[in-house]
């Protein structure tokens, strides 16, 4: 997603991991961990000109 924002023209793209995010069901949580699934907070700006 970070790369998509930059390639669309956004600037000052920032990403931080959301602490505490997890899936509730253990089976989904295990699968998500194996794929490196994380929640992130992304911010970006559209250039003024």
């Amino acid at each position, binding site marked *: 997603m970070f790369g998509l924002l930059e390639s*669309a023209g956004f600037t000052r793209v920032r990403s931080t991991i959301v602490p505490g995010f997890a899936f509730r069901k253990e089976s989904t949580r295990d699968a998500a961990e194996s794929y490196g*699934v994380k929640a992130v907070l992304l911010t970006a*700006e559209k250039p003024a000109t």
Partner: protein
Amino acid sequence: MTDLARVHAEEQAPLEGVIKGEVMRMYQEVAEHPDGEFHFYHGRQAAEMFGYERAWLDRAPPGAVASFAGVGNPHLRSRLQPGEVVLDLGSGAGLDSIIAAWQVGPTGRVIGVDLNPTMCRKAEAHAAAEGVRMACHEGRMEDIPLPDASVDVVISNGVINLSFRKRTVIRELFRVLKPGGRLSITDIVSAKQLSQSIVNDPKLWAS
């Protein structure tokens, strides 16, 4: 679009339709039966986990809080100012829209966009109950029903990952933002390519 990309898109179209239906069904289920069991945490428990202020959750309509199904807190970095126009992409039952409306005040405006018209009406009802301005448009995130350069800020919470066409969604966000506008979104990313069995499972994709 190249021939290969066109063939790929045509092959994925039926699956995309099924997933769209499953996404609508699942999030409507959260709104109508918030005491149900889902793959993800939801409601007040999830909102508190992500640092939503307790005062917000006490003040917001209980139905909006109970149906919250986000994956983080986009308000932490949104820096909303009075008078700004905000797009809440995938506004669901409306909790994030209501919190945004408190911040932009009566001179600002919050516009929700949601795939599910039932959710749109629910979000508007929750906003009206709280006495804030929020209009929700039924629409797809790949084709946002707003003019070019019409919003100051985009917020979104756990929605873009549900799209098969994320590049198109991001282009749409760029289009609807005014020059100098900004976005603050929380979403799910994965470090590895998901297996085809997950991609082909509408329930897993929707969750």
